[in-house]
């Protein structure tokens, strides 16, 4: 199913080539599948859309961000009543998909506020989730034919 990314390069290599309309839209079922896979596992949506190399790079980047964030004991947010920013932060981190839920409910990871790397770790964990949110949107664009 997957092919290498070497065939993805546009013939005229302009900096904005990635934003140009590229292909026809996939059927709705495949579009939903690509978006769902992209959210569940970072990069899997791109692998499903035959962008295997890109998908593996994205997977590695998001996982490295998560691992560094955990090793620094960053905060894994959960909603706190009356503190609305915690809802937003929880949403941002939950965008990492399955890894977030494995950390939260499988490993019971929470972070440690007294750790010296707490703030940095929180930034890494938030960034991992938000990177995957961008990957979901990118998978949507590719599947709907708005991007190559």
């Amino acid at each position, binding site marked *: 199913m997957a092919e290498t990314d070497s065939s*993805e*390069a*546009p013939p005229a*290599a*302009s*900096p904005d*080539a*990635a934003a140009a309309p590229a292909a026809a839209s996939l059927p709705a079922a495949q579009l939903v599948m690509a978006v769902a896979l992209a959210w569940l596992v970072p990069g899997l949506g791109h692998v499903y859309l035959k962008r295997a190399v*890109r998908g593996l*790079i*994205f997977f590695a*980047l998001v996982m*490295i*961000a998560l691992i*560094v964030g955990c090793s*620094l004991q960053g905060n894994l947010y959960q909603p706190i009543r009356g503190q609305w920013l915690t809802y937003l932060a929880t949403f941002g981190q939950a965008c990492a998909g399955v890894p977030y839920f494995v950390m939260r409910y499988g490993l019971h990871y929470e972070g440690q*506020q*007294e750790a*010296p*790397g707490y703030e*940095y770790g929180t*930034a*890494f964990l938030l*960034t991992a989730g938000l*990177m995957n949110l*961008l*990957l979901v949107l*990118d998978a949507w664009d590719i599947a709907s034919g708005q991007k*190559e």
Partner: protein
Amino acid sequence: MLSHFFLMVVYALLVSIFFTVLWRRDRRAQVTLFLQLFLGMVGGGLIVAWLMFPFPSGPPAPIP
């Protein structure tokens, strides 16, 4: 090893590679964008740190 600068460089590296792969396909354009993002983040951080240097840090904040 876990200095502020090291963590800033790691963060800048991750984010720069991510947006480079996300936004560019051509290799030359990728290198250009990567350097712009990476040097912008690390250099910007150093400039802000340099500008903050004259200001006293004050006592450490209590841990709630």
